[in-house]
């Protein structure tokens, strides 16, 4: 974390006015568009709809944890959580592993043209998820695909395969971004550290394994946590894939479940699901952070 060197106020000069100018715009917007929505979602999740008789008017009343009990009994919601967890367990290590290997190669003296490769790998990050999903959807479709050798043997859009086809889209978009973060961390390692290893006759593989990788663990943890958050929030790619594959149901991922629940409309149940999803995300990120901190401390 940055250590700030605060400018001391010159005698008699107060900076209240300036501070207000600097902080208020962000503060007001942050409250309105971050804090209020979060609190509002929690508030909504505590409401429930009551009717007087079957045809009576619907009234929202305080329902305590009613919606949360409904969430815990909601099979499709938990199936969708299970699905994205499975997705994350496979996809996140592969994506970060590839990103790490590419970053190490870019940082090694083994390759030429590193500037070209860096931009080529990063280019997919400039492609919006919607467009990436549409593009890969075409590439997976047997009648359009250039990879007919694959698509004529495996139906990449079938119920068994579509989760992994989506995983490939996500990997394609985000490897370059993660690679750049890891690569930046590698660049900030002082060269002198390698001198001793070179004198000892260590090869590039040995230097990568024993010096570079341990030093970029913080970068890996950071990218790992953002990837976990992204995985649990998966929405755009499966939403687009609904046009290509019937196997992507309206409860395929937690966010799709929330979206379809909200459009029933069952806003309070959707809000409770959002809160549960956010807490799950937070718990997972926190566990990863603690687990890796202990590992590095040892």
């Amino acid at each position, binding site marked *: 974390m940055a250590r700030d060197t605060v400018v001391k106020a010159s005698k008699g000069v107060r900076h209240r006015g300036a501070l207000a100018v600097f902080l208020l715009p*962000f503060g007001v917007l942050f409250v309105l*568009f971050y804090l209020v929505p979060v609190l509002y*979602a929690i508030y909504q999740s505590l409401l429930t709809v009551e009717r007087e008789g079957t045809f009576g008017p619907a009234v929202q009343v305080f329902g305590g944890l009613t919606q949360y009990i409904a969430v815990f009994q909601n099979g499709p919601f938990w199936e969708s959580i299970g699905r994205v967890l499975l997705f994350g367990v496979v996809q996140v290590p592969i994506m970060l592993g590839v990103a790490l290997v590419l970053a190490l190669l870019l940082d090694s003296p*083994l390759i030429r043209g590193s500037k070209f490769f860096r931009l080529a790998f990063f280019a997919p990050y400039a492609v919006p998820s919607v467009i990436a999903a*549409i593009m890969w959807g*075409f590439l997976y479709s047997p009648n359009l695909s250039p990879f007919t050798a694959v698509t004529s043997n495996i139906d990449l859009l079938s119920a068994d395969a579509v989760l992994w086809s989506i995983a490939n889209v996500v990997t394609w978009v985000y490897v370059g971004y993660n690679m750049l973060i890891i690569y930046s961390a590698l660049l900030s390692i002082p060269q002198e550290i390698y001198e001793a290893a070179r004198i000892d006759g260590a090869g590039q593989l040995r230097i990568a394994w024993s010096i570079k990788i341990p030093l970029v663990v913080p970068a890996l943890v950071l990218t790992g946590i953002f990837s976990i958050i992204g995985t649990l929030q998966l929405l755009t790619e499966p*939403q687009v894939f609904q046009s290509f594959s019937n196997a992507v149901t309206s409860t395929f991922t937690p966010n799709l479940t929330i979206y379809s629940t909200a459009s029933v409309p069952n806003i309070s149940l959707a*809000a409770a699901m959002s809160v549960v999803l956010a807490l799950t995300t937070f718990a997972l990120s926190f566990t990863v952070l603690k687990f890796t901190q202990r590992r590095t401390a040892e």
Partner: protein
Amino acid sequence: MTVSTETRALRTQGMKKPARDGGIRESAVSRVVAMAVMIVATLYFLTPLWWLLVASSKTREDFTSTNPLWFADFALFDNIAALIEYRDGVFIRWLANSALYAGLGAFLATLIAAMAGYAIAKYSFFGRETLFNLILGGVLVPATALALPLFLLFSQTGMTNTIWAVLLPSLVSPFGVYLSRIFAAASVPNEIIEAARIDGAGEVRTFFTVATRLMAPALVTIFLFQFVGIWNNFFLPLIMLRDEELFPVTLGLYVWNTQVSQIPDIRALVVIGSLLSIIPLIVTFLALQRFWQSGLANGGLK
């Protein structure tokens, strides 16, 4: 920070030297393997984009009947013309909307975040750390989780289906505040602020005339990532907007793509539209790479 920038400068200057040095020890085999990995990765990342370019240049008949990875009759400009003419140029309208949401949104978000980050770095005030930690917590809140409650709030004020519903929430960049704080702490020396004070410049003026210049790489980085974030945003416009005239290009292409089974001809427009919608982003990234690469390096992980 300065140390790491210097090392990087030294390393880029001396790039050739360690390479030759290593050449004695690194076997030809590891070089070949390394280059092979890089080439395979390049093919993986660029083939889909190449396919999109080739597919965009084909006539409707050639699209399904010729080699998907090589050009046939070159009809790129005809396809672009067809896209622009379709439904009175609605696609151009979408592109303009995206440019407005992403351009204006990212510009204001950068300015607002830079002021907040600068204030947190350079002034001491009550609750400074608490405020910063709260903002950091905001970095972890995903945009998709906020979209639904935002929709409910906007619908109570009757502001859904307006440009404000998309523009206002995208003005908040907690990550931008984080990056600005780190960068302001590292690159705006206190002596300069004090000198400006002695010269009689007000605090706000000092920020705009002096600090913003010193923080430029961070500001470009924040702008760029916010720009991409807004341009790529899909869920918020999806639930906020009903009126096609207000759609950003991602939402418009998504809607077209869902109509392909009813209107097969629209598929060609989806393909050429996809290509045109990513070109502005790729060009922006290439043009500004010097800035964002150093911004990412300094802000990423310190």
